[in-house]
């Protein structure tokens, strides 16, 4: 095999693999990205039923109801609008009424958000960044208004 041909083979193979990688990234980008929405955006019909997204806000005071077999219902609010959420599973340790939460799932036609993942913070003083930003956008929350120092630790 000549030197020229070897170089051609090398470049062709590299190009092919990189093209495949790029194609995979682009196709996955279209289907598997999850957007973050606040209750106000959900109420404003920015979300089509059936699409998967992350809903973030505060757990509304007095909204938590436990059903049979670890199913729970609660409402997520950004104090402007409120979205009811249904979930089955163990809630995170720091899930509390009046505190920040991020839930991932699908909006059902009836307007109920069916979550399959509920993420809360991993620290008693921390407000999930997305939630803090969403609340700030609503003018409901100001820097420093959260209890204690805002130290960032896990939303996971």
């Amino acid at each position, binding site marked *: *095999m000549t*030197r020229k041909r*070897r*170089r051609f*083979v*090398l470049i062709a*193979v*590299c190009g092919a*693999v*990189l093209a*495949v*990688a790029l194609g*995979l*990234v682009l*196709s*996955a*980008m279209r*289907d*598997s*990205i*999850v*957007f*973050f929405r606040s209750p106000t955006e959900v109420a404003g019909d920015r979300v089509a039923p059936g699409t998967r997204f*992350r809903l973030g806000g505060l757990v509304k005071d007095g909204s938590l109801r*436990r059903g*049979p*077999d*670890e199913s729970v219902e609660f409402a997520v609010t950004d104090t402007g609008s409120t979205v009811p959420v249904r979930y*089955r*599973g*163990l*809630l995170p*340790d*720091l899930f509390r009424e009046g505190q920040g939460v991020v839930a*991932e799932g699908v909006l059902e036609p009836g307007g109920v958000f069916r979550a399959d993942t509920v993420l809360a913070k*991993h*620290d*008693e003083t*921390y407000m*999930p*960044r*997305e939630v803090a*930003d969403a609340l700030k956008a609503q003018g409901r929350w100001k820097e420093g208004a959260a209890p204690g120092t*805002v*130290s*960032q*630790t*896990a*939303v*996971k």
Partner: protein
Amino acid sequence: MLIEVGHYALALALALSLTQMVMPVWASRTGDPVLRGVTVPAALATFVCIAFAFGALTYAHVTSDFSVQNVFENSHSMKPLIYKISGVWGNHEGSMMLWVLILALFGAVVALARDAVPPVLRANTLGVQAAITVVFLLFILTTSNPFARLNPAPVEGRDLNPLLQDPGLAIHPPLLYLGYVGFSITFAFAIAALIEGRIDAVWARAVRPWTLIAWCFLTVGIAMGSYWAYYELGWGGWWFWDPVENASLMPWLAGTALVHSTVVMEKRDALKVWTVLLAILTFSLSLLGTFLVRSGVLTSVHTFATDPSRGTFILGILVLFIGGSLALYAWRAPGLRQGGLFAPISREGALVMNNLFLSAACATVLVGTLYPLVLESLTGEKISVGAPFFNLTFLPLAVPLLLVVPFGQTLAWKRGDIAAASQRLLAAFGLALVLGLGAVALTWGGPVAAPLGIGLGAYLILGAAMEILTRARARSLGLSLRRAAGLPRSAWGTALAHAGVGITVIGIAAQAWSVEALATVPRGGRIGAGPYTAALDGIVPRTGPNYTETVARLTIRARDGDPVGTLEPGKRFYASRNMSVSEAGLLTLGASQVYASVGETQADGSVGLRLYYKPLVLLIWLGAVVMALGGGLSLTDRRFRVGAPALRAAARRPERVAPHSVPAE
């Protein structure tokens, strides 16, 4: 007082590293070997100073000296000793201290490795290493001082985040940092080579052990972090494609490519320019990981505190080193002597495929990790890129790579014969196929991914074994054994590491069979997952040193009703932080585990229980340990232990002549 001395030692280390950084530059102008030689004691003294400062901070933590702000914010007098020690790096300032400690440690070890590295290369490498140390010491001293005092001193500390109060934290960060930061030395070697303008097999041989050491630690560090997340977060998952995890995976992927490309460089004097780039990229990805984790752009359990000035500083470091090194590369690389091209079907060809797929996989992880950050800063739109994205992009690139692995080992250097290689691997492939099909038949109706993955893993293990078998095969068994024992340790190391990959693949694939159950269980009630059931015997309170705990006592029974063990998952409440943390209960049965975590206790005494059956789950981490053992075995290979004779001769001659005596020139 000790705290102030520690602070002073840190400043002294800064001055020493500055000297260490400047001397090689000066020496290159004057050609004075004495100036060049200063780098060695400077590197050692820097390490001693930083180690002393680190020791002082550790002492403050152990003695609960709450007049130190760092101790006050992250410790508690009732905290067990092990967490007082590990709490040193369980916070932003302390973790940066660990960073520079390991940075200086690698500098000191290189300084001590007399015969392994030619003197000019060593001096320049130490100079570059010192430049990294300088910048990170400046970062600590100006933005993240761990020695700040509080006056008046508080009586009690705020305690460490309970999630971090776990033996995992004692082991995971040091291992991970030894890997992450270890790549700094490879980076320093690459920059030194670019500055010198020469790069050859001697360079590759000098760099390879350091790359391997860093890679081994990073492998184990990532595995340890994964296991910690698995049992501590209570979700039973072992990898979440969380940006912080990706931040450690990216240098690992690039580092794995680097470990392989240095082989090509050492053996065939090819892929030189690419290897240098890869060395730069690997450490750049480590720096990027540090930026992502430490700057607060991500939210995670690893991000201890946000302070905009810190983020900007680390971003500056990132731009300086990545931008600077790539600019140097663009300037100097065209002048480096190119290695030869080679046949596509050969061992070096296979290693190029390895590099190609690993780099492509690394690039997809990079895109998935950075895209949300870029999109948010450009448009304000918040998105999350999670497991589905990475499963769609990473897996299709990983599977062909794994299929090629046994071929790479089997093909000969220079010109391989693909037909002969396939023939040698036929037995491995056939046996793996039988195993995979057997698994399909046994679990008919179950997920197909699991048997396929198990077949792939078996193929990797058998392929690695075949390689050793074919090389050792002789007429008699005794001769074969002697031949096997006589094989270079690097051959054994390669086989072991590749078998480790196979073990991990089997463990991952078997997770498709894991079973999950969720129920509210009354006292005496049962919950079943897969072949096991758990009976709730009762809920008991318990008191720990700095927490109170509610424990659910479970008896685990196999399908036939025989008890196989007990589990005690609990929920701990840390009053000092007003925070509760779930502790999963793990029952290990062979390589499989039964995993239980508890939710809320109801008023009637029933409790929310989640039970998982995780078949062969331990293989995931065991495989990583085997990989690292393979790397370690490779490190003990004769050519690293004995050192190259040509190199010794070069070292003994006067330095200015040394470059010409290197064989590859």
